[in-house]
């Protein structure tokens, strides 16, 4: 899969009731990596994703692929949709067919592919998302988590270079979150750039190569530990500090964790703790 560099510069989107949802938002999506887009409800995450996908035209600013602005013409948008696919938060906003396999075939057919190629892509996408067994099940009998993954498969079957996911883990229980993340890992391994939006800072810290926080209509982007360690930024963004960082910093202070970057998740934290306290402590032992 070829990589493309998707970016947005100075996006302005003004919604109803005067307030600007985006007010000069810029974002650069690292190719072939995982980006987590963080923000409180209503911060403009979804709006930003919709601009990136071409679904929404910003009042000002532009979305570029490899430095070239996306044309708003019918043809320009069609080309853009083969590079970028957005999966919406509510799977029922994208699943229009009662049959899973038929639904996933919609995108590839719109690309004008011949039947055998479409069937191959449908099977491949369902397999990648771990829902191959659901192909001949009716959409209305699926659980919420299954519908979410089928909706993602519908986008994956278009073989986009960049996959944008709006809150793919919202409403899922821990096991379903793990399954969804595993599916995203398979996508990443197959070469896709994956962007997900979430307000779960711990998830972002554990999963992302890079994070971007949407706050005040703008975007602050950087390395997960840097951005998610910035208390002032997090407060403005109505987000919590990831507890792994809070606790990790405290344990580091106590000398229980080695200096340097903090672990990003519970297993990492547990692994980094000393097995017995006496051994590593800078106490008066010596």
């Amino acid at each position, binding site marked *: 899969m070829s990589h493309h560099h998707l970016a947005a510069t100075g996006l302005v989107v003004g919604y109803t009731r005067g307030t600007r949802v985006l007010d000069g938002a810029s974002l650069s999506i690292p190719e072939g990596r995982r980006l987590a887009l963080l923000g409180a409800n209503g911060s403009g995450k979804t709006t930003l994703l919709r601009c990136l996908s071409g679904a929404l035209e910003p009042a000002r600013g532009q979305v570029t692929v490899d430095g070239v602005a996306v044309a708003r013409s019918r043809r320009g948008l069609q080309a853009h949709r083969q590079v970028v696919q957005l999966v919406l938060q509510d799977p029922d906003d994208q699943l229009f067919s009662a049959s899973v396999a038929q639904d996933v075939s919609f995108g590839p057919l719109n690309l004008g592919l011949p039947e055998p190629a479409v069937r191959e892509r449908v099977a491949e996408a369902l397999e990648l998302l771990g829902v191959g067994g659901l*192909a001949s099940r009716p959409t209305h009998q699926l659980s919420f988590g299954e519908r979410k993954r089928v909706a993602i498969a519908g986008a994956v079957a278009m073989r986009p270079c960049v996959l944008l996911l709006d809150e793919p883990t919202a409403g899922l229980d821990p096991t379903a979150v793990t399954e969804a993340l595993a599916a995203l890992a398979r996508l990443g391994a197959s070469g896709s750039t994956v962007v997900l939006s979430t307000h779960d800072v711990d998830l972002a810290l554990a999963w992302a190569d890079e994070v971007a926080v949407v706050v005040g209509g703008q975007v602050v982007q950087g390395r997960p530990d840097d951005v998610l360690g910035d208390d002032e930024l997090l407060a403005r963004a109505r987000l919590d500090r990831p507890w792994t960082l809070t606790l990790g910093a405290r344990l580091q202070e106590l000398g229980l964790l080695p200096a340097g970057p903090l672990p990003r998740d519970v297993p990492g934290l547990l692994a980094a703790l000393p097995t017995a306290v006496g051994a590593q402590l800078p106490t008066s032992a010596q």
Partner: protein
Amino acid sequence: MTGLAVDDAAWASAWRSRSPGDKALLSLGLVLCALLLPVWPGSVLVGLTAVALALGPARVPARTFGRAVRLPLAFVAVGALTSVVQLGGGPGWAPDAAQRAGALVGHALAGGAAVLLLATTTPMSDLLPALRRLRVPAAVVEVASVTYRLLFVLLESLHTIREAQTARMGHSTVRRSFRSSGVLAAAVLTRSWDRARRLQDGLAGRGMVDGLRVLPEVLPSSRRFLAATVTGLTAIVVVSLTVGGAAG
């Protein structure tokens, strides 16, 4: 959860992977036999065949099939009785009332069972693409497909909203229940518009060009099934005409 029992059965049926065309031929053949052949033994044979095939090879749950067959019974009973009441010279039974009512019930039950054989083995989303071959315009088939998908979404909304209204005593008296039902209908209607709008957005993102083209599953026709269908239907016709002809 809001699954319609017949629809659930269709998706779970052992005949789910059979060609919808094959099943339609069998079912419609039986329907025509039920309608055109004399009630004895035609309708009886059709009814028995439909029930045996549904509960046997197609493995439709007997409960689902039984309930669905019983559903139109109220209409059939009242309709049949009304048709054999005679008004001339004061109300009374028509001379051949029992026989005529029996025939009506027989035709209706057999025909109903034959339609159910198709309904409980073939999901709508398999049948609708097949309508294209009958020269139904693509736009109509697509509208019908969206209807099929959305009716489950809306049925679920309907049940949940009604439950929420009931919890807040919205159906505690006839008067309140009427008011709540009006609000309920309006809520479901606005949700249907909202759904359509959001789907529009979602599908535009998936590259919707002109229409909602999808690829139906490959459900190949079976020669043996077709041969058995034709043989079976012929047998029913022949037996009915011989026995029925001899009796009548």
